[in-house]
């Protein structure tokens, strides 16, 4: 699914990077690498940006960029309930 389809609080694995090379580089330099584990913290209303946490860093991603990112829910670990 796309990052914009996820719900706040969801823990996700990043499965794709932006197609535009410059955008790709920008998100990579903030630690958004393929397979990165991220937490969707909150979303702004009216197709506003999404706030995610990756590697201890909080990043705001515009809707357009976020909608181009494929994610999968992180497999639940034993003890996660």
């Amino acid at each position, binding site marked *: 699914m796309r990052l914009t389809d996820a719900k706040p609080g969801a823990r996700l694995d990043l499965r794709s990077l932006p197609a*535009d*090379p*410059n*955008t790709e*580089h*920008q*998100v*990579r*330099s*903030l*630690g958004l*690498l393929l397979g990165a584990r991220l937490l969707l913290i*909150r979303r*702004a*209303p*009216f*197709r*506003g*940006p999404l*706030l995610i946490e990756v*590697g*201890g*860093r*909080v*990043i*705001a*991603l*515009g*809707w*357009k*960029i976020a909608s181009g990112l494929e994610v999968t829910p992180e497999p639940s670990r034993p003890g996660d309930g």
Partner: protein
Amino acid sequence: MRIALVGQPNCGKSTLFNQVSSYKAHTGNFPGTSVTYTESKVRVQGVTVDVVDLPGTYTLAGTNPAERVTLRYLASTDVNVIINVLDATHLSQGLDMTLELVELQRPMVVAVNLLDEAVRLGLRIDGPALEARLGVPVLPLVASKGRGVRHLFNAALQAGKRAVGPTRPRYSRDVEDAVSSLTAALLGTPTPLHPEATAFKLLEDDTELASEVARRAPGLVPLAEQRRRVLSDGRGQPARWVIWGERHGLAGNLEHAVVTQGERRTTWRDRLDDVLLHPVAGYAALLLILFGFFQVVYATGQIVEPPLSALFTAWTSRLHAALGGPSLLDTLAVGLLQGVAGGAAIVLPYLVPFLLGLGFLEDIGYMPRLAFLMDALMHRLGLHGKSVVPFILGYGCSVPAVMSTRILENRRDRFLAATLSTLIPCSARLVVVFGLVAATIGPAAAAGIYLLNVFVIALTGRVLSSMLGEDSPGLILEIPPYRIPAARTVLAKAWYRVREFVVEAWPALIAGSAVLALLSFFGVAPLLNALVRPVTWLLGLPAATGVPLAFGILRKELSLVMLGQALGTLDFSLALTQVQRITFAVFVVFYVPCLATLVVLRREFGWRAMLAVSAIATFVALAVALAVRGGLLLAGV
């Protein structure tokens, strides 16, 4: 000796710089770019060294102007030591760039900053272990409190004297093979970076560096291409991803070895975003914060401005008396004095508190949150959240607003944000709206003009954005944790910005004021009125309003002062109808920005862009003023 401060955004690099820099520190642009650096002389153990604060970058990959100039600057022989400032709370990502810097093999010292925050987060960092693994001195730092600053610079000085670079980390076999074959081929060719660092950058596909190397050794380009292909075929991903991935892995291993996570203490800072970024409460808080901010700026200005204005008025009459009545000399001297007064009594009383408040909001970490909240709205204008900063600055003064567009990534966004920010009524235009409309018709009419302004800017943004094509790529912004601002940093930042106004805009204001005085002395007013008549006729204004409108280009507040002179009364309700007053104010709000703004527009974007902004502003001003006039007349006002 020259020491360069390098680090990622929000690592506290500039806080460190402001702890050691003097008031003489100067800000400059890298040649041919809008990327800025700040430089200051600092005494370390009796030696005077140059300290340069380079722009914050996440990598040295050369994909944006800041990364390119940082790499280029570090490659220059002028830099004797690199101080790499790391954010202790995000060590892994910072270490990515540390390893890149180590690869340059230049003398270097690492400062682990924000240790107090790391402790709060329960992080323990083993400095000696990091030092042993990196092979460069590692020092603890709490830059905001000045802790560790002296030791850091002493260590940097020693590193500069030793002039020995560190040994770079080892990569996988295939990467090392590619690096060594390129390094061997580079032997004998002068390269901007260490030959191995050049080999890395060629494998990472740094096109600018590649073209520079190609000029000196054309044979290397096909070799680099071949080595990249071998590497990417072997790994199934582009060569640059291979190197970035390995470097990230090495940084992760380093972090793993030196950082231990203890118990985390939750504080007010962790809870604050639940309110300030909340879909409803966040916007209410935003309005409150901005209202409070403007209220403080306005109140401070109101305290300082009247005595200063009175002082300058007294000086003007004394000057008149001393020079013995109307003469060319008297006119010129008074014109110059009024220019000085405009800067000192009208601009600075609002600009200084505005910049202090802005610095406070920036350093506490609110600006990125504002960008987050405003992103959706800004997209309606074809921009993204970060461009809200020039818009807010625009209510103070268009000059810093245009300058602040440098924070945006591409030229299209910068131009669009600059154009729209010049349409925002600055504090000088506020004087016109309040003096002409609020004072004679009522505050509601003035508020109406501000609302209309927002609507027109939104509409202009939509139209320009669709004309400029290609939508803005969107917001990618780190939201740093809240931090208590250091007074010294806030003061230093405000000082650099005030100095920009004093050096660049104020002289234009003084010169403009002198020219204006001379023109009125030589009686050029009727000629100007005739020249501007087509506009004043179209807007249904008396011919005498031509000169005030024309001179408003020099200084916006002049429009009001001169309107009084031109009409022979300061009671505008006697000389102009309600519709005329509103039409005049609306036109002044939108048309060509003042001379100082035009100067900055030319410097930032060039002549053509400056003329384009002027043309857009004039067109918008005419269209809106005509529409307002028509609307009011139809409504029977």
